[in-house]
């Protein structure tokens, strides 16, 4: 393990960007001696870079990363309670489908990231949220206790609003727009001085 196989003549469907391959009989499978791609490719951690306007225009995809500017940190970022049955976010302590329940605590950031006239909602998962804020779970707990829910949201804004970020995960695109479920988020560290002189050169102003 792992075993690399080549699949031919199978049926392919897809839902929310995740392909679903149905193999009807064993002849459709061929076991390969070695992967046909470069060994340096780490499939467990592989993503393709896609421009944000393409993410918004394309169908749903998995394994993508994209870059844009954070233009909004929604007020329901921070600690949330999820239904113990279906993980849906509880509203007033109740799930839409499963009624009142005590819920499981989770952390997420709900952002809006725009680029070149396109917009996407970005849901950042717990690990990526904490990592991008350089906080541990306990540190975040005490921040929220100190500042309140909205005060914490404002702290996140001070950290990311108007800044360029790179997010990695999968996209869900439907008639409501595009959404990225991010499992990693990196705030771009950029050197303004260097960028400015590059722009001067590019524009012939140096």
């Amino acid at each position: 393990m792992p075993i690399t196989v080549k699949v031919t003549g199978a049926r392919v469907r897809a839902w929310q960007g995740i392909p679903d391959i149905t193999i009807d009989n064993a002849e459709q499978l061929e076991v390969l001696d070695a992967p046909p791609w470069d060994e340096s490719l780490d499939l467990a951690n592989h993503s393709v870079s896609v421009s944000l306007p393409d993410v918004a225009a394309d169908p749903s995809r998995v394994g993508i990363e994209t870059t844009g500017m954070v233009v909004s940190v929604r007020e329901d970022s921070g600690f949330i309670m999820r239904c113990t049955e279906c993980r849906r976010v509880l509203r007033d302590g109740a799930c839409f489908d499963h009624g009142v329940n005590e819920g499981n605590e989770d952390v997420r950031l709900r952002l809006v990231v725009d680029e070149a006239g396109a917009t996407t909602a970005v849901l950042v998962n717990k690990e990526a949220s904490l990592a991008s804020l350089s906080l541990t779970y306990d540190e975040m707990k005490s921040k929220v206790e100190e500042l309140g829910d909205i005060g914490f949201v404002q702290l996140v804004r001070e950290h990311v609003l108007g800044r360029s970020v790179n997010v990695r995960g999968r996209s869900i695109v439907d008639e409501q727009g595009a959404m990225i479920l991010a499992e990693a988020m990196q705030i771009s560290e950029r050197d303004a001085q260097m960028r400015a002189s590059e722009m001067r050169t590019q524009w012939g102003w140096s």
Partner: protein
Amino acid sequence: MERARIARQPAHLLLASEFGSATLHEKGSGEYDPSFVITKLGAKVNRVVAAGLLERLELRETANGSTLYQGQLRDPTGLHYFSVGDYNSEIMRELSHQWVERLEDGEPLLVMMTAKTRWYQTDEGAVYTSLRPEEACVVSREVYANWLLDACQSTMERMNNFTTSLEVEPTMDAFARVGLPTDLLVARNHYGEVDLEPFKLNLMQALDIAEGRLEAATTPPPMMSLPTGDEGDATSSESGGALGELLLQAIAHLDQGEGVDFDTILKNAVARGHVREAAESVLDELLESGQLDEPRFGWFRVASGE
């Protein structure tokens, strides 16, 4: 409830001179249709990300007893006017309250905001644009500088599109064929001839500030007059120094050997938020004091100093 949700409008990066000089707006016929401001460079914006030095913020009582914060945000190209009212989120009003106090203490605040654009026309027919911030925060100099560069890049793209469009037949079809935004055609039909020089000068200034060559990002230049009309001409004498500097800089930048014409100079001053009449009188002063020459009527250049 089952009505399809209206798609969120993307935010655009606009410098103050481009937004402030826009006079065109567009609104759909439906009650919930978004409204847009269309700029001279063809940006069609319902929402912007703006940033700059918070230069003024005041709490006002309105006629119906509600409260309204009115403020100005200065970037290297001019001023954004914005207001925060009862319709805003609690945190936005709370922030405004805090910033009023911090400003009174003389603290320089670099502010980043996501804001909705607003367009209005006075009874006299004058058109103004302003912002209604949705979210905002204080940012560091480095974050501001990078935002400034992002905004410069967006502006430059629009300027390049504009230049390209001059060679293209002014029809929707022709614009679409070469991949130009059709909003640009709408803008060109409304604004007629647009002088790109002030925009170029703005970008040069913004690059200087992003690079830290000028301190203007953290030290506010003298105030300009507001379109409220209650200042009279008190500003012309007190802003003469900075305005004079600006004019000298602009003329030096724009001079291609034969000097710079009167109109271009004044347009540059206005694009940076100065009053035209004030710029005229400062231009006169510079001429009288010998800092400027007028090699032929209506054309100016910086005096050689020898």
